[in-house]
């Protein structure tokens, strides 16, 4: 068979196209991804959630924020533009604008906010690389090694829970906790419900740090859980539930 330059280039080009088409074919032919099988007693039958008792929360106290940010090596960049935060406070009327009325004394009260670990998280839906994903116990997690930093998730999150590392965060961490990874520039991060502590049987750092017991964390699928009792007995509200995201941070206001 005689191959001229033209023919060779044609075949070569087709070959390269074939490689490019493969991932698309893969994804269209493949059924559901194989779920990682959970070890007994770790993931199965769990749905983590948190209740925030706003009235118990002491104004000016930052214990939960300090605990979380130091455990997770969250940098303090000192300006609102580059800011990275996992848990912080916002005024009541800003996070529940639909509840606002002129005479409500709680209007200016700071309320703790963090990732809502949604049942139906928009951030997971929009991520083009599955770098952010939902575990079967409900925790919405980040893979810092896969994230390409496109920030689609930041646009999609209706709660403003996500931060990008606009620059190298490491010089801005006061004291590095060697137990938890630091991040690199150009990746998105957020609260992970202390998944690394849960694996050791510990409760999240913010909950542990709260002396007022304003934060209650637990498994919604466990029949006797304290959080189940709180959600049963109290009127609770969630942030923007009408968006269909199914937020799992419940506020008693």
């Amino acid at each position: 068979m005689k191959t001229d330059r033209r023919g060779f280039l044609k075949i070569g080009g087709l070959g390269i196209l074939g490689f490019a088409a493969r991932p698309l074919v893969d994804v269209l032919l493949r059924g559901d991804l194989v779920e990682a099988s959970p070890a007994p007693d770790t993931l199965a039958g769990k749905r983590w959630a948190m209740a925030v008792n706003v009235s118990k929360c002491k104004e000016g106290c930052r214990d939960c924020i300090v605990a979380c940010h130091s455990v997770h090596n969250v940098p303090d960049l000192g300006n609102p533009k580059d800011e990275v935060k996992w848990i912080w406070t916002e005024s009541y009327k800003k996070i529940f604008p639909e509840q606002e009325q002129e005479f409500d004394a709680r209007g200016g009260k700071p309320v703790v906010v963090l990732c809502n670990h949604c049942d139906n998280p928009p951030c997971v839906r929009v991520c083009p690389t599955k770098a952010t994903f939902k575990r079967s116990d409900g925790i919405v997690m980040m893979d810092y090694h896969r994230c390409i930093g496109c920030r689609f998730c930041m646009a999609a999150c209706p709660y403003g829970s996500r931060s990008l590392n606009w620059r190298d965060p490491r010089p801005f961490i006061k004291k590095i906790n060697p137990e938890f990874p630091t991040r690199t520039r150009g990746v998105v991060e957020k609260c992970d419900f202390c998944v690394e502590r849960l694996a050791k049987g510990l409760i999240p750092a913010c909950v542990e740090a709260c002396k007022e017991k304003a934060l209650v964390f637990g498994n919604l699928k466990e029949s006797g859980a304290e959080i189940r009792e709180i959600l049963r007995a109290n009127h609770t509200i969630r942030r923007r539930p009408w968006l269909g995201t199914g937020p799992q941070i419940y506020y008693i206001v």
Partner: protein
Amino acid sequence: MLEKALIGSKKYYGLVTLLLIIIGAGFYFYLRQLSYGLGITGMSRDVSWGLYITQFTFLVGVAASAVMVVLPYYLHNYKIFGKITILGEFLAVASVAMCLTFIIADLGQPARAFNVLLYPTPTSILFWDMVVLNGYLLLNIVIGWTVLASERKSVPPPAWVKPLIYLSIPWAVSIHTVTAFIYAGIPGRGFWLTAIMAPRFLASAFASGPALLILMCFIVRRFTRFDPGKEAIQSLAKIVAYAVAVSVFFVLLEIFTVFYSQIPEHMHHFEYLFFGMEGHEKLVPWIWTSAILAILSLILLINPVTRRKEGILAMTCVAVFASLWIEKGLGLVITGFIPSPLGRVFEYSPTGPEVIITLGIWAMGFLILTILYKIAVTVKEEIST
């Protein structure tokens, strides 16, 4: 045919050199961005997309230059566009190349860009945007190049290219629609959560793409011996007139719905854009400039006397392009983030390095365009002599 890009006049070499210098400057600052991180730009935790994504969004629209000449020529046998289909297609190639480069420039971890292929995620609109944009780029390169090569040899184009041309027409619709879906599918941003987003993208694209194409036709006619034809330019002008009219109409529909319904989550963004909020009003002069330019160009395009005067038409096309660059480039993307989901008004303005990187990518697009047009025009000149 590529060799035609290597031989040219002094002016041609001058233009190429100038563009290369701007690209070099952009590339230098891009290297700085790579080592420092995206913090070198004006983007922030609240306004997490800026100039790069706005340019990408706008340029997807400019790529519509191709379909607006291809459709009348191939589907309606509108012969007058025969001469300029290649100009439309190559303009689309340059636009889409810029789009893709802007996305790469916007990534926090560009070295990982291929994760989008390694872990394809069909639920992500960004995945589909990658598919349709690359597809449209490939279609226009293949179609444009093949048809031009046949033209050069004075033979009809090969039969296999016809189905690709027909495919490129709905494909053009898909790039605007999918890009609009990036915004329109997000639950928590009232500014973008509107089903009219895709039609708006199409209308403004059908205006900005052909408007730039008209300007390119004028430039080609001025500096080369190839004449795209007065009638072709006038037909394009009519397309721009209709598209601007529809585009303005769609924006007015949005304004009615948000200001009459008064739903805060939707209305606040428009308030910020048109009137400013809590003393922050960086976008206000821009958007009113855009509005005035749109109305002005509409008057000049609808009136046949002004539309037929080529000097005025050229100015009008600049106005259309500028108006839509502001409306879709700045207004549509940035306003979606202000106020933030937490009710904070945190403004955005690009930094120097960010602007130079942006200019560098535009220069890259225009370099691609210059080279492709040089080839196309040289071939056309050869045929006519």
